[in-house]
Protein backbone atom coordinates (compact mmCIF):
# COMPACT_ATOMS: atom_id res chain seq x y z
CA UNK A 1 0.00 0.00 0.00
CA UNK A 2 1.37 3.43 -0.93
CA UNK A 3 1.29 6.36 1.48
CA UNK A 4 -1.54 7.89 -0.50
CA UNK A 5 -3.53 4.63 -0.31
CA UNK A 6 -3.29 5.02 3.46
CA UNK A 7 -4.51 8.60 3.19
CA UNK A 8 -7.49 7.42 1.17
CA UNK A 9 -8.20 4.55 3.58
CA UNK A 10 -7.86 6.83 6.62
CA UNK A 11 -10.48 9.17 5.17
CA UNK A 12 -12.87 6.51 3.83
CA UNK A 13 -16.51 7.18 4.67
CA UNK A 14 -17.12 3.62 5.80
CA UNK A 15 -14.23 3.64 8.27
CA UNK A 16 -15.24 3.17 11.93
CA UNK A 17 -15.33 6.49 13.80
CA UNK A 18 -14.70 7.22 17.48
CA UNK A 19 -18.31 6.45 18.35
CA UNK A 20 -17.95 2.99 16.77
CA UNK A 21 -14.87 2.30 18.88
CA UNK A 22 -16.53 3.61 22.02
CA UNK A 23 -19.69 1.59 21.44
CA UNK A 24 -17.87 -1.61 20.53
CA UNK A 25 -15.31 -1.42 23.32
CA UNK A 26 -17.26 0.05 26.21
CA UNK A 27 -20.81 -0.95 25.25
CA UNK A 28 -23.62 0.41 27.37
CA UNK A 29 -21.27 1.47 30.13
CA UNK A 30 -20.39 4.69 28.26
CA UNK A 31 -22.10 7.74 29.76
CA UNK A 32 -21.67 10.80 27.55
CA UNK A 33 -20.98 14.20 29.11
CA UNK A 34 -21.41 17.49 27.32
CA UNK A 35 -20.04 20.99 27.21
CA UNK A 36 -16.93 22.91 28.15
CA UNK A 37 -18.73 24.91 30.91
CA UNK A 38 -17.55 28.10 29.24
CA UNK A 39 -19.17 28.52 25.88
CA UNK A 40 -20.86 25.54 24.28
CA UNK A 41 -20.95 21.83 23.58
CA UNK A 42 -18.83 20.97 20.56
CA UNK A 43 -20.19 17.87 18.86
CA UNK A 44 -16.89 17.25 17.07
CA UNK A 45 -15.67 15.96 20.44
CA UNK A 46 -17.44 13.10 22.20
CA UNK A 47 -16.51 12.37 25.78
CA UNK A 48 -17.63 10.77 28.98
CA UNK A 49 -16.99 7.98 31.43
CA UNK A 50 -17.17 4.23 30.95
CA UNK A 51 -16.18 0.91 32.43
CA UNK A 52 -13.31 -1.14 31.09
CA UNK A 53 -13.02 -4.67 32.48
CA UNK A 54 -14.48 -3.45 35.76
CA UNK A 55 -12.47 -0.23 36.10
CA UNK A 56 -13.70 3.31 35.48
CA UNK A 57 -12.10 5.21 32.59
CA UNK A 58 -12.59 8.56 30.89
CA UNK A 59 -13.08 8.29 27.14
CA UNK A 60 -12.71 11.16 24.66
CA UNK A 61 -12.94 11.01 20.89
CA UNK A 62 -12.79 13.33 17.92
CA UNK A 63 -15.90 12.34 15.99
CA UNK A 64 -16.39 12.85 12.26
CA UNK A 65 -19.90 11.39 12.04
CA UNK A 66 -21.01 8.28 10.22
CA UNK A 67 -23.36 9.67 7.58
CA UNK A 68 -23.79 13.03 5.89
CA UNK A 69 -26.26 14.35 8.46
CA UNK A 70 -24.05 13.35 11.36
CA UNK A 71 -20.97 14.69 9.63
CA UNK A 72 -22.53 18.09 9.17
CA UNK A 73 -23.74 18.03 12.73
CA UNK A 74 -20.25 17.22 13.99
CA UNK A 75 -18.46 19.61 11.65
CA UNK A 76 -16.69 16.65 10.02
CA UNK A 77 -14.64 16.13 13.16
CA UNK A 78 -13.05 19.58 13.04
CA UNK A 79 -13.24 20.83 16.62
CA UNK A 80 -13.61 24.41 17.80
CA UNK A 81 -11.84 25.70 20.91
CA UNK A 82 -14.81 24.62 23.03
CA UNK A 83 -14.25 21.04 21.86
CA UNK A 84 -10.66 21.05 23.10
CA UNK A 85 -11.79 22.73 26.31
CA UNK A 86 -14.45 20.07 26.85
CA UNK A 87 -11.75 17.43 26.38
CA UNK A 88 -9.51 19.15 28.89
CA UNK A 89 -12.34 19.50 31.39
CA UNK A 90 -12.97 15.76 31.18
CA UNK A 91 -9.26 15.02 31.54
CA UNK A 92 -9.05 17.17 34.66
CA UNK A 93 -12.06 15.32 35.99
CA UNK A 94 -10.30 12.02 35.28
CA UNK A 95 -7.24 13.27 37.17
CA UNK A 96 -9.37 14.21 40.18
CA UNK A 97 -11.04 10.81 40.31
CA UNK A 98 -7.83 8.95 39.43
CA UNK A 99 -9.09 7.16 36.35
CA UNK A 100 -7.10 6.82 33.14
CA UNK A 101 -7.92 8.69 29.93
CA UNK A 102 -8.35 7.04 26.54
CA UNK A 103 -8.46 9.32 23.48
CA UNK A 104 -9.56 8.34 19.99
CA UNK A 105 -8.17 10.72 17.41
CA UNK A 106 -9.76 11.22 14.01
CA UNK A 107 -9.73 14.69 12.50
CA UNK A 108 -8.49 16.49 9.42
CA UNK A 109 -7.49 19.28 11.78
CA UNK A 110 -8.77 21.89 14.21
CA UNK A 111 -11.42 24.06 12.57
CA UNK A 112 -10.22 27.15 10.72
CA UNK A 113 -12.96 29.77 10.96
CA UNK A 114 -13.90 33.13 12.39
CA UNK A 115 -15.50 31.82 15.58
CA UNK A 116 -12.63 29.42 16.21
CA UNK A 117 -10.13 32.28 16.03
CA UNK A 118 -12.29 34.63 18.10
CA UNK A 119 -12.48 32.09 20.86
CA UNK A 120 -8.77 31.27 20.82
CA UNK A 121 -8.16 28.09 18.84
CA UNK A 122 -4.40 28.43 19.33
CA UNK A 123 -4.74 28.96 23.07
CA UNK A 124 -7.15 26.03 23.46
CA UNK A 125 -4.71 23.63 21.79
CA UNK A 126 -1.73 25.09 23.66
CA UNK A 127 -3.49 24.64 26.99
CA UNK A 128 -4.24 21.01 26.22
CA UNK A 129 -0.60 20.31 25.33
CA UNK A 130 0.60 21.98 28.50
CA UNK A 131 -1.94 20.40 30.86
CA UNK A 132 -1.79 16.92 29.36
CA UNK A 133 1.96 16.92 29.84
CA UNK A 134 1.49 16.92 33.62
CA UNK A 135 -1.87 15.19 34.03
CA UNK A 136 -1.47 12.92 37.04
CA UNK A 137 -3.23 9.95 35.49
CA UNK A 138 -2.36 7.66 32.55
CA UNK A 139 -3.29 8.84 29.04
CA UNK A 140 -3.48 6.56 26.02
CA UNK A 141 -4.19 8.02 22.57
CA UNK A 142 -5.18 5.96 19.57
CA UNK A 143 -5.14 7.45 16.08
CA UNK A 144 -7.96 5.63 14.31
CA UNK A 145 -8.21 7.60 11.04
CA UNK A 146 -6.83 11.03 10.27
CA UNK A 147 -4.39 12.69 12.63
CA UNK A 148 -4.40 16.25 11.36
CA UNK A 149 -1.69 18.41 12.90
CA UNK A 150 -2.24 20.45 16.09
CA UNK A 151 -5.91 19.53 16.15
CA UNK A 152 -4.90 15.88 16.58
CA UNK A 153 -1.95 16.51 18.87
CA UNK A 154 -4.28 18.32 21.30
CA UNK A 155 -5.62 14.85 22.19
CA UNK A 156 -2.36 12.95 21.69
CA UNK A 157 0.05 14.15 24.37
CA UNK A 158 -0.06 10.73 25.95
CA UNK A 159 2.00 8.06 27.72
CA UNK A 160 1.57 5.89 24.65
CA UNK A 161 0.29 6.73 21.20
CA UNK A 162 -1.00 3.93 19.00
CA UNK A 163 -2.10 3.95 15.40
CA UNK A 164 -4.40 1.85 13.34
CA UNK A 165 -2.45 0.33 10.47
CA UNK A 166 -4.04 2.58 7.84
CA UNK A 167 -4.38 5.72 9.92
CA UNK A 168 -2.25 8.77 9.13
CA UNK A 169 -0.64 11.43 11.33
CA UNK A 170 0.86 14.55 9.83
CA UNK A 171 1.87 18.15 10.42
CA UNK A 172 -0.01 19.24 7.30
CA UNK A 173 -2.48 17.63 4.90
CA UNK A 174 -0.87 16.15 1.76
CA UNK A 175 -2.95 18.59 -0.31
CA UNK A 176 -1.75 21.57 1.72
CA UNK A 177 1.83 20.37 1.45
CA UNK A 178 1.55 19.85 -2.33
CA UNK A 179 0.07 23.27 -2.90
CA UNK A 180 2.90 24.92 -0.96
CA UNK A 181 5.63 22.80 -2.54
CA UNK A 182 4.48 22.54 -6.12
CA UNK A 183 1.59 25.04 -6.21
CA UNK A 184 -0.59 22.07 -7.12
CA UNK A 185 -2.81 20.40 -4.55
CA UNK A 186 -3.37 17.60 -7.08
CA UNK A 187 0.08 16.24 -6.28
CA UNK A 188 -1.12 15.02 -2.90
CA UNK A 189 0.10 11.49 -3.61
CA UNK A 190 3.72 12.65 -4.01
CA UNK A 191 3.41 14.85 -0.93
CA UNK A 192 2.08 11.92 1.11
CA UNK A 193 5.32 10.03 0.45
CA UNK A 194 7.44 13.02 1.50
CA UNK A 195 5.61 13.65 4.77
CA UNK A 196 6.22 10.18 6.31
CA UNK A 197 2.69 10.03 7.62
CA UNK A 198 1.93 6.29 7.63
CA UNK A 199 1.87 4.15 10.75
CA UNK A 200 4.94 2.26 9.51
CA UNK A 201 6.97 5.44 8.99
CA UNK A 202 5.89 6.91 12.32
CA UNK A 203 6.76 3.71 14.17
CA UNK A 204 10.23 3.85 12.65
CA UNK A 205 10.57 7.48 13.73
CA UNK A 206 9.59 6.50 17.28
CA UNK A 207 6.51 8.72 17.26
CA UNK A 208 4.13 5.86 18.08
CA UNK A 209 4.45 2.80 20.32
CA UNK A 210 2.20 0.38 18.53
CA UNK A 211 0.52 -0.34 15.21
CA UNK A 212 -2.91 -1.97 15.42
CA UNK A 213 -3.39 -4.36 12.49
CA UNK A 214 -6.60 -3.86 10.56
CA UNK A 215 -8.47 -6.95 9.41
CA UNK A 216 -9.81 -6.82 5.84
CA UNK A 217 -13.36 -6.48 7.08
CA UNK A 218 -13.70 -4.68 10.35
CA UNK A 219 -15.06 -7.30 12.66
CA UNK A 220 -15.48 -7.73 16.36
CA UNK A 221 -12.01 -9.29 16.56
CA UNK A 222 -10.43 -5.87 16.10
CA UNK A 223 -12.43 -4.31 18.90
CA UNK A 224 -12.05 -7.27 21.26
CA UNK A 225 -8.31 -7.45 20.89
CA UNK A 226 -8.00 -3.67 21.14
CA UNK A 227 -10.09 -3.71 24.31
CA UNK A 228 -7.79 -6.24 25.94
CA UNK A 229 -4.70 -4.40 24.79
CA UNK A 230 -5.97 -1.09 26.24
CA UNK A 231 -6.92 -2.75 29.49
CA UNK A 232 -3.56 -4.50 29.93
CA UNK A 233 -1.62 -1.36 29.08
CA UNK A 234 -3.56 0.85 31.48
CA UNK A 235 -3.21 -1.67 34.29
CA UNK A 236 0.58 -1.47 33.87
CA UNK A 237 0.54 2.34 33.76
CA UNK A 238 -1.58 2.47 36.91
CA UNK A 239 1.24 0.84 38.84
CA UNK A 240 3.44 3.89 38.26
CA UNK A 241 3.33 6.83 40.64
CA UNK A 242 1.93 10.04 39.12
CA UNK A 243 5.39 11.63 39.41
CA UNK A 244 7.04 8.78 37.52
CA UNK A 245 4.28 8.78 34.92
CA UNK A 246 4.77 12.51 34.28
CA UNK A 247 8.52 12.12 34.13
CA UNK A 248 8.25 9.34 31.54
CA UNK A 249 5.73 11.35 29.53
CA UNK A 250 8.01 14.38 29.55
CA UNK A 251 10.93 12.25 28.37
CA UNK A 252 8.78 10.63 25.71
CA UNK A 253 8.34 14.02 24.02
CA UNK A 254 11.68 15.48 25.09
CA UNK A 255 13.53 13.06 22.82
CA UNK A 256 12.03 14.50 19.60
Amino acid sequence: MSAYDCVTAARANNRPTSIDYITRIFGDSFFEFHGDRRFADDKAVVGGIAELNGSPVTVIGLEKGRNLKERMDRNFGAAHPEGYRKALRLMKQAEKFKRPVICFVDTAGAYCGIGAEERGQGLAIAENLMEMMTLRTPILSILIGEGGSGGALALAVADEVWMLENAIYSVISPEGCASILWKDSGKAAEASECLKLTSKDLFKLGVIERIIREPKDVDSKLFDSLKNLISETLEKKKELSPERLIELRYNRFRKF
Partner: protein
Amino acid sequence: MNTKDIFNFLKPKNELENQGEFAENHPYIPDELWVKCPICKNVILSSDLVDNFKVCPKCGYHFRIAARQRIEMTVDEGTFTEFDADMTSSNIIDFPDYARKLKNAKINSGENESVITGMAKIGGYDTVMAVMNSQFMMGSMGTVTGEKVTRAFEYAAENQLPIIIFTVSGGARMQEGIMSLMQMAKTSGAAKKHSDAGLLYITVLTDPTTGGVTASFAMEGDIILAEPHALIGFAGPRVIEQTIRQKLPKDFQSAEFLLEKGFVDAVVERKDMKSSLARILSLHCSVPTKESTKEDEDNECI
Protein backbone atom coordinates in the same frame (compact mmCIF):
# COMPACT_ATOMS: atom_id res chain seq x y z
CA MET B 1 25.06 55.02 -2.93
CA ASN B 2 24.39 56.50 -6.35
CA THR B 3 21.32 58.41 -7.48
CA LYS B 4 19.94 55.39 -9.26
CA ASP B 5 19.65 53.57 -5.91
CA ILE B 6 17.96 56.49 -4.26
CA PHE B 7 15.15 56.28 -6.76
CA ASN B 8 14.80 52.53 -6.57
CA PHE B 9 11.92 52.76 -4.16
CA LEU B 10 9.91 54.75 -6.66
CA LYS B 11 9.73 51.87 -9.09
CA PRO B 12 6.20 50.56 -9.12
CA LYS B 13 7.41 46.96 -8.90
CA ASN B 14 10.55 46.39 -6.95
CA GLU B 15 12.13 42.97 -6.83
CA LEU B 16 10.67 42.20 -3.42
CA GLU B 17 7.17 42.43 -4.73
CA ASN B 18 7.87 39.63 -7.16
CA GLN B 19 8.59 37.20 -4.35
CA GLY B 20 4.93 36.41 -3.84
CA GLU B 21 2.15 37.75 -1.73
CA PHE B 22 4.09 37.64 1.49
CA ALA B 23 6.82 40.02 0.48
CA GLU B 24 4.28 42.29 -1.15
CA ASN B 25 2.33 42.74 2.04
CA HIS B 26 5.27 42.83 4.38
CA PRO B 27 8.36 44.28 2.82
CA TYR B 28 11.45 44.13 4.95
CA ILE B 29 13.59 47.19 5.13
CA PRO B 30 15.91 47.39 2.17
CA ASP B 31 19.30 48.82 2.72
CA GLU B 32 18.48 52.10 1.09
CA LEU B 33 18.43 55.74 1.99
CA TRP B 34 14.67 56.03 1.89
CA VAL B 35 11.94 53.59 2.80
CA LYS B 36 8.28 53.74 1.92
CA CYS B 37 5.85 52.77 4.68
CA PRO B 38 3.60 50.02 3.31
CA ILE B 39 0.65 51.29 5.35
CA CYS B 40 0.60 55.09 5.09
CA LYS B 41 2.81 55.21 1.96
CA ASN B 42 4.87 58.01 3.39
CA VAL B 43 8.52 58.07 2.46
CA ILE B 44 10.80 57.90 5.47
CA LEU B 45 14.51 58.54 5.74
CA SER B 46 16.11 55.21 6.66
CA SER B 47 18.12 56.73 9.48
CA ASP B 48 14.94 58.24 10.98
CA LEU B 49 13.36 54.82 10.86
CA VAL B 50 16.31 53.26 12.67
CA ASP B 51 16.24 55.99 15.32
CA ASN B 52 12.54 55.32 15.79
CA PHE B 53 12.92 51.57 16.56
CA LYS B 54 11.98 50.80 12.95
CA VAL B 55 8.51 52.14 13.50
CA CYS B 56 6.98 54.50 10.94
CA PRO B 57 7.06 57.97 12.55
CA LYS B 58 3.94 58.97 10.60
CA CYS B 59 1.52 56.11 11.20
CA GLY B 60 3.19 53.90 13.80
CA TYR B 61 3.56 50.85 11.54
CA HIS B 62 6.03 48.43 13.13
CA PHE B 63 8.40 47.17 10.43
CA ARG B 64 9.61 43.62 10.85
CA ILE B 65 13.03 43.43 12.38
CA ALA B 66 15.68 40.75 12.61
CA ALA B 67 16.14 38.90 15.89
CA ARG B 68 19.59 40.43 16.53
CA GLN B 69 18.20 43.95 16.17
CA ARG B 70 15.37 43.03 18.50
CA ILE B 71 17.79 41.80 21.13
CA GLU B 72 19.91 44.92 20.76
CA MET B 73 16.84 47.15 21.26
CA THR B 74 15.53 45.23 24.24
CA VAL B 75 18.35 44.16 26.51
CA ASP B 76 20.82 46.18 28.58
CA GLU B 77 23.77 46.94 26.38
CA GLY B 78 26.38 44.22 26.17
CA THR B 79 24.56 41.79 28.47
CA PHE B 80 23.41 39.18 25.96
CA THR B 81 25.11 35.78 26.06
CA GLU B 82 23.93 33.36 23.41
CA PHE B 83 23.10 29.68 23.98
CA ASP B 84 23.51 26.90 21.41
CA ALA B 85 24.53 29.29 18.65
CA ASP B 86 26.01 26.54 16.49
CA MET B 87 23.08 24.16 16.57
CA THR B 88 21.79 23.55 13.04
CA SER B 89 18.98 21.59 11.41
CA SER B 90 19.44 18.62 9.13
CA ASN B 91 17.10 17.04 6.64
CA ILE B 92 15.73 14.46 9.08
CA ILE B 93 13.00 12.98 6.90
CA ASP B 94 14.76 13.48 3.54
CA PHE B 95 12.28 16.07 2.44
CA PRO B 96 12.72 17.26 -1.14
CA ASP B 97 14.60 20.52 -1.51
CA TYR B 98 14.87 21.10 2.24
CA ALA B 99 18.67 21.05 2.34
CA ARG B 100 18.81 23.83 -0.25
CA LYS B 101 16.13 25.86 1.56
CA LEU B 102 18.04 25.58 4.83
CA LYS B 103 21.21 26.74 3.14
CA ASN B 104 19.44 29.74 1.63
CA ALA B 105 17.79 30.60 4.92
CA LYS B 106 21.20 30.66 6.59
CA ILE B 107 22.63 32.89 3.89
CA ASN B 108 19.64 35.25 3.83
CA SER B 109 19.34 35.64 7.58
CA GLY B 110 22.95 35.23 8.62
CA GLU B 111 21.66 32.94 11.37
CA ASN B 112 21.77 29.18 11.96
CA GLU B 113 18.13 28.76 12.95
CA SER B 114 14.77 30.51 13.28
CA VAL B 115 15.36 31.32 16.94
CA ILE B 116 18.17 32.87 18.97
CA THR B 117 18.28 31.96 22.65
CA GLY B 118 20.39 33.21 25.51
CA MET B 119 20.70 35.13 28.74
CA ALA B 120 20.52 38.88 29.22
CA LYS B 121 19.66 41.65 31.60
CA ILE B 122 16.71 43.95 31.11
CA GLY B 123 16.59 46.95 33.43
CA GLY B 124 19.20 45.15 35.50
CA TYR B 125 17.14 41.97 35.90
CA ASP B 126 18.52 38.66 34.70
CA THR B 127 16.33 36.84 32.25
CA VAL B 128 16.53 34.01 29.76
CA MET B 129 15.41 35.01 26.28
CA ALA B 130 14.34 33.39 23.03
CA VAL B 131 13.84 35.61 20.02
CA MET B 132 12.45 34.19 16.80
CA ASN B 133 13.57 35.39 13.40
CA SER B 134 11.19 35.90 10.46
CA GLN B 135 14.10 36.01 8.04
CA PHE B 136 14.84 32.32 8.65
CA MET B 137 12.15 30.32 6.81
CA MET B 138 9.51 32.69 8.16
CA GLY B 139 10.30 31.70 11.71
CA SER B 140 9.02 28.19 11.14
CA MET B 141 9.50 25.74 14.01
CA GLY B 142 11.72 22.79 13.21
CA THR B 143 13.39 20.33 15.55
CA VAL B 144 16.27 22.66 16.36
CA THR B 145 13.93 25.59 16.99
CA GLY B 146 11.99 23.43 19.42
CA GLU B 147 15.17 22.10 21.01
CA LYS B 148 16.62 25.57 21.58
CA VAL B 149 13.38 26.88 23.07
CA THR B 150 13.09 23.77 25.27
CA ARG B 151 16.68 24.16 26.49
CA ALA B 152 16.02 27.82 27.23
CA PHE B 153 13.03 26.86 29.41
CA GLU B 154 15.03 24.13 31.13
CA TYR B 155 17.94 26.47 31.80
CA ALA B 156 15.56 29.07 33.21
CA ALA B 157 13.89 26.48 35.43
CA GLU B 158 17.21 25.11 36.73
CA ASN B 159 18.51 28.59 37.49
CA GLN B 160 15.26 30.01 38.86
CA LEU B 161 15.06 32.64 36.15
CA PRO B 162 12.23 34.24 34.23
CA ILE B 163 12.01 33.74 30.47
CA ILE B 164 10.89 36.14 27.75
CA ILE B 165 10.08 34.86 24.28
CA PHE B 166 9.51 37.08 21.24
CA THR B 167 7.52 35.04 18.73
CA VAL B 168 7.32 35.42 14.98
CA SER B 169 6.42 32.32 13.03
CA GLY B 170 4.46 30.91 10.15
CA GLY B 171 4.02 27.74 12.22
CA ALA B 172 5.49 24.26 12.30
CA ARG B 173 8.10 23.52 9.61
CA MET B 174 6.47 21.29 7.01
CA GLN B 175 9.85 20.02 5.77
CA GLU B 176 10.45 18.19 9.05
CA GLY B 177 7.05 16.49 8.94
CA ILE B 178 5.76 14.98 12.16
CA MET B 179 8.98 15.85 14.00
CA SER B 180 8.10 19.54 13.81
CA LEU B 181 4.62 18.78 15.20
CA MET B 182 6.27 17.01 18.13
CA GLN B 183 8.11 20.25 18.96
CA MET B 184 4.77 21.74 19.99
CA ALA B 185 4.40 19.09 22.69
CA LYS B 186 8.06 19.24 23.68
CA THR B 187 8.15 23.02 24.15
CA SER B 188 4.80 22.98 25.97
CA GLY B 189 6.13 20.38 28.38
CA ALA B 190 9.16 22.53 29.11
CA ALA B 191 6.98 25.64 29.54
CA LYS B 192 4.81 23.73 32.01
CA LYS B 193 7.79 22.57 34.06
CA HIS B 194 9.09 26.13 34.22
CA SER B 195 5.64 27.37 35.21
CA ASP B 196 5.21 24.70 37.88
CA ALA B 197 8.48 25.91 39.41
CA GLY B 198 6.70 29.21 40.09
CA LEU B 199 8.68 31.14 37.53
CA LEU B 200 7.65 33.95 35.22
CA TYR B 201 7.17 33.51 31.49
CA ILE B 202 6.40 36.52 29.30
CA THR B 203 5.59 36.15 25.61
CA VAL B 204 5.72 39.01 23.16
CA LEU B 205 3.78 38.23 20.01
CA THR B 206 5.10 39.99 16.93
CA ASP B 207 4.03 40.04 13.31
CA PRO B 208 3.13 37.34 12.31
CA THR B 209 2.61 34.65 14.95
CA THR B 210 0.54 31.77 13.60
CA GLY B 211 0.09 28.01 13.41
CA GLY B 212 2.00 25.62 15.59
CA VAL B 213 3.79 28.34 17.52
CA THR B 214 0.50 30.07 18.40
CA ALA B 215 -0.91 26.68 19.37
CA SER B 216 1.99 26.01 21.72
CA PHE B 217 4.46 28.22 23.60
CA ALA B 218 3.32 31.58 22.18
CA MET B 219 0.03 31.34 24.06
CA GLU B 220 1.42 29.76 27.21
CA GLY B 221 2.92 32.85 28.82
CA ASP B 222 1.82 34.07 32.24
CA ILE B 223 1.78 37.48 30.63
CA ILE B 224 1.18 37.90 26.91
CA LEU B 225 2.16 41.15 25.22
CA ALA B 226 1.83 41.98 21.53
CA GLU B 227 3.24 44.56 19.16
CA PRO B 228 0.70 46.90 17.53
CA HIS B 229 -1.06 45.54 14.44
CA ALA B 230 0.77 42.19 14.60
CA LEU B 231 -1.09 39.36 12.86
CA ILE B 232 -1.76 36.67 15.46
CA GLY B 233 -3.81 33.56 14.90
CA PHE B 234 -3.97 29.81 14.66
CA ALA B 235 -4.91 29.51 11.01
CA GLY B 236 -3.58 32.03 8.51
CA PRO B 237 -6.12 34.44 6.99
CA ARG B 238 -5.88 32.85 3.55
CA VAL B 239 -6.62 29.38 4.89
CA ILE B 240 -9.65 30.70 6.77
CA GLU B 241 -10.95 32.52 3.70
CA GLN B 242 -10.61 29.34 1.67
CA THR B 243 -12.40 27.32 4.35
CA ILE B 244 -15.34 29.64 4.92
CA ARG B 245 -15.39 31.15 1.40
CA GLN B 246 -15.80 34.68 2.71
CA LYS B 247 -13.60 37.72 2.99
CA LEU B 248 -12.39 38.33 6.53
CA PRO B 249 -13.15 41.60 8.28
CA LYS B 250 -10.37 44.18 8.36
CA ASP B 251 -8.17 43.94 11.48
CA PHE B 252 -9.34 40.36 12.11
CA GLN B 253 -6.50 38.53 13.96
CA SER B 254 -4.69 41.80 14.69
CA ALA B 255 -3.07 42.34 18.09
CA GLU B 256 -5.83 44.86 18.86
CA PHE B 257 -8.49 42.29 17.91
CA LEU B 258 -6.93 39.76 20.28
CA LEU B 259 -6.79 42.38 23.01
CA GLU B 260 -10.50 43.04 22.56
CA LYS B 261 -11.30 39.32 22.62
CA GLY B 262 -9.28 38.86 25.79
CA PHE B 263 -6.27 36.90 24.54
CA VAL B 264 -3.44 39.33 25.18
CA ASP B 265 -2.66 41.34 28.30
CA ALA B 266 -1.45 44.47 26.56
CA VAL B 267 -0.46 45.85 23.19
CA VAL B 268 2.89 47.54 23.69
CA GLU B 269 4.67 49.80 21.23
CA ARG B 270 8.23 48.89 20.38
CA LYS B 271 9.66 52.03 21.93
CA ASP B 272 8.04 51.08 25.25
CA MET B 273 8.88 47.37 25.11
CA LYS B 274 12.08 47.42 27.12
CA SER B 275 10.67 49.58 29.91
CA SER B 276 7.47 47.53 30.02
CA LEU B 277 9.41 44.28 30.33
CA ALA B 278 11.63 45.81 33.00
CA ARG B 279 8.55 46.94 34.96
CA ILE B 280 7.01 43.48 34.82
CA LEU B 281 10.30 41.83 35.80
CA SER B 282 10.71 44.26 38.70
CA LEU B 283 7.37 43.13 40.14
CA HIS B 284 8.33 39.47 39.94
CA CYS B 285 12.01 39.43 40.83
CA SER B 286 13.13 40.77 44.18
CA VAL B 287 16.14 42.92 43.28
CA PRO B 288 18.30 43.55 40.27
CA THR B 289 21.35 41.32 40.42
CA LYS B 290 24.32 42.85 42.14
CA GLU B 291 26.53 43.63 39.20
CA SER B 292 23.75 45.29 37.33
CA THR B 293 23.74 48.70 38.96
CA LYS B 294 24.01 51.46 36.44
CA GLU B 295 27.65 52.04 37.09
CA ASP B 296 28.62 48.40 36.81
CA GLU B 297 26.57 48.06 33.70
CA ASP B 298 28.58 50.80 32.02
CA ASN B 299 31.76 49.09 33.07
CA GLU B 300 30.59 45.79 31.68
CA CYS B 301 29.98 47.26 28.31
CA ILE B 302 33.59 48.17 27.71
